[in-house]
């Protein structure tokens, strides 16, 4: 079979160009919203004032198996005084049938409680917070419908993620490596009028999802991808969609997802082209990489299809594989 490649000069020039753009762009973001962070995907999010509105957050606590206390399993009371967690836990969902007496052991155990909560943010986004005081630096798998990604709690056992909602009734499940699961859900009315597509994979595949809004080309402001990600607020200001990269790429074998959201009420008539791209690197060249595509069904829900992409051979390192038809373009009627 034929192997066509480009002159390296052209590619390198383009890479340099787009990197320059991203860097400048990040600086601009940083200057507007405070200092950036190490991780690009979170940088623009963490600098933003986080929405504090709470609607219908629920928690479902589980008792983590903590050695030493196993002899005395107590049904945990969920009075706010006991669950003195940073997360906005709305009590009432947990089991309250047996109020246990207040004791030192239970306090210790109660503060070990892992709690997740979800609140709606702007443009069908969600702020997902997890507090697991006894599980610092713990690897967790977060699932939201068909979407799954790997995260890690910080040194205090906390984690907060700004992510897009795939459905109006949004449920989240956070699974720790020891098997415990905490869940959270919320209602995101804006999700009904937001189109989302996603690509998800595991490990270092080099895959990226790119969106080109209404005729935008590379490096223009309508070219949205994880390295030039925009928070929902900024995306809203420029009347466009936003890309969210979910998952910790620095963790081995982590599940990663690129999610592109477009609020339909912004829609001018036209098309947003969606492509899947992969830089050919020493790590992925000549290999087949697996991923899943998530695309909206008519009405609600997403169709999930497994895809396998053949990355070009290693003499094409530095080139980009660009696939236009892995995901459908979004076609928008004028609003």
């Amino acid at each position, binding site marked *: *079979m*034929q*192997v*066509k*490649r*480009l002159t390296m000069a*052209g*590619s390198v*020039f*383009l890479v340099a160009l787009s990197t320059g753009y991203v860097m400048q762009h990040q600086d601009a973001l940083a200057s507007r919203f405070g200092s950036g962070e190490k991780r690009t995907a979170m940088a623009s999010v963490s600098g933003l004032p986080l929405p504090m509105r709470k609607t219908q957050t629920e928690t479902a606590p589980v008792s983590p198996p903590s050695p030493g206390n196993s002899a005395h399993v107590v049904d945990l009371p969920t009075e706010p005084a006991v669950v003195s967690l940073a997360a906005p836990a709305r009590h009432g969902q947990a089991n309250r049938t047996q109020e246990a007496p207040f004791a030192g052991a239970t306090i210790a155990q109660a503060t070990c409680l892992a709690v997740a909560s979800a609140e709606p943010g702007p443009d069908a986004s969600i702020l997902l917070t997890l507090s697991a005081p006894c599980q610092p630096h713990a690897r967790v798998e977060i699932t939201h419908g068909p979407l799954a990604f790997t995260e890690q709690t910080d040194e205090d056992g906390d984690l907060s993620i700004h992510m897009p909602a795939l459905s109006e009734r949004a449920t989240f499940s956070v699974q720790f490596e020891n098997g415990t699961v905490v869940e959270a859900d919320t209602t995101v009315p804006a999700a009904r009028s937001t189109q989302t597509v996603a690509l998800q994979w595991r490990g270092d595949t080099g895959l990226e999802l790119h969106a080109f809004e*209404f*005729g935008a*080309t*590379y490096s223009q402001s309508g070219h949205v991808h994880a390295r030039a990600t925009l928070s929902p607020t900024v995306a809203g200001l420029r009347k466009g969609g936003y890309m969210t990269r979910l998952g910790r790429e620095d963790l081995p074998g982590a599940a990663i997802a690129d999610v592109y959201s477009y609020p339909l009420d912004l829609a001018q008539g*036209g*098309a947003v*082209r969606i492509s899947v791209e992969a830089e*050919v690197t020493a790590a992925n060249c*000549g290999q*087949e990489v697996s991923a899943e595509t998530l695309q*909206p*069904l*008519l009405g609600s829900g997403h*169709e999930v*299809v*497994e*895809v*396998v*992409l*053949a*990355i*070009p*051979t290693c003499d*094409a390192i530095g*080139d*980009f*594989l*660009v*696939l*236009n*038809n*892995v995901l*459908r*373009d979004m*076609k928008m009627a004028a609003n």
Partner: protein
Amino acid sequence: MISRSKRAAVFAALLLFTGSSVAAQDIVLESRDGALALEGMLLGYDGEFYRISTEYGVLTVDGQGVTCDGPGCPDLTTYVADIRISGARAMGEVLLPSLIEGYGLQEGLRPRRVIADNDTFRIDLTDPGAGRVLARFHFALSTTSDGFADLASDSADLVMAVREVRPEEVARARDAGVGDLSAPRRTRTVALDALVPVVAAASPLTSLAPDVLAAIWSGEIDDWAALELEAGPIELHEIDSDTGFAEGFADRLLEQAGQTGTVSVRHHGTAATLVDTVAPDPWALGLTRFSEIGNARPLALTAPCGRILRATTASLKSEDYPLATPLLLYTPERRLPLPAREFLSWLTTPAAERVVRRAGFVDQVPDSTTLSGQGDRLANAVLAAGEEVSLADLQEMVRQMTGTRRLSTTFRFRNGTAQLDPQSESNVDRLARDLEAGVHDGRELVLAGFSDGEGPAPANLRLAADRAEAVARALREAAPVTDWSRVTLMTAAFGEAMPLACDDTEWGRRTNRRVEVWMR
């Protein structure tokens, strides 16, 4: 500026087309009671049937009745159906893959798309229970012509076509033993589409007369100043001429207007790259598909008599828009593997129509419009009335229309013949299925025949009546098990009374010659 699309030209050497052919080797097929045995070379096995070359000639043997012995026997438990689909990108990029994945999911199978590059990929359907692949659909995207060539050279099982098969392709396929591709059963309409002229998103232009379009494509008009716009060269864009779209355009508009496209036209591999090029370019005029308008501005067609024809979902379904180009799937006469046959019959289900809509194409589910929604048509009828169509004729027509809804299903004919065009053949099948299923029970369906305005009105009325009768016969033939005591099928004819387009062009007359379905 360096185009990034060039960077896409990176392909992986991945052998996708493993093919399903079994190495020709000696086998013995023995009937289960041991009474009969056939010896020969195995030509193929499709999961159900053996094709074996014997001293009696090539025989097809039902696998259920025999046991196979010999080195050439296929492994029955690991048989995977390989189905090769070749042809137009317009269908292979999004529509067909979506349909196969939709079919798989509906059947409880797990689809998996294995991609080598934009034009070469396959979709595996896995039975999650048994954990094994049941079918592999191999895609090779190119052009309609290449699809037919692949079918003739036995490198394809299904052809994706954006135009009808040409006589020379029919001949080549017949010589190759594929059968008669021009027979009605060899083609099915998967979705509706149309040719649409487009200009830059910011252009003030909203419509063009087809004869002006033809003059532009022939080079007679080459500056926007001729259209009372800012002066500048008109730059023309087409999808690769071989995709069939431009051909359809030439057939329908240019040649009939006595023109042929001889000016310099920029060709694009896909409609998406065409519209992405045209959308920001104020000098560009392109010809794209309705399913891929992207960010360009579509132009309506203004006929000399003042009627405006716009490509919309409704006008595609009723074929009232003159540049309809349905998306077709051609099948060879030979028996296809079971998953392919099941997929093809699934294509006529409502679930398949939903996938068509979701993929951004126009499905064939009929819509219906009340009389009050047909104001434009009635206005046309009044305007066209005069010497040949009297007020009494119009009143009779409106009396008949009152209380009815027009189904978008409309029957049209190939130029100068009484033979239905492909979309209309598909309409006969669909309406016949609905009649047999009792969808229209308790209703009265009126097949209303219309003609163009050429020639004397009485003759046109007769022609219109003949056409309505022909469609009624075709429907009765195609729907033999319909309970006719529950549904009434009538015909009526109104001649040239309600023109949709102008009669001064061939495509206009073709649009006007039709049989509509009114339902009450």
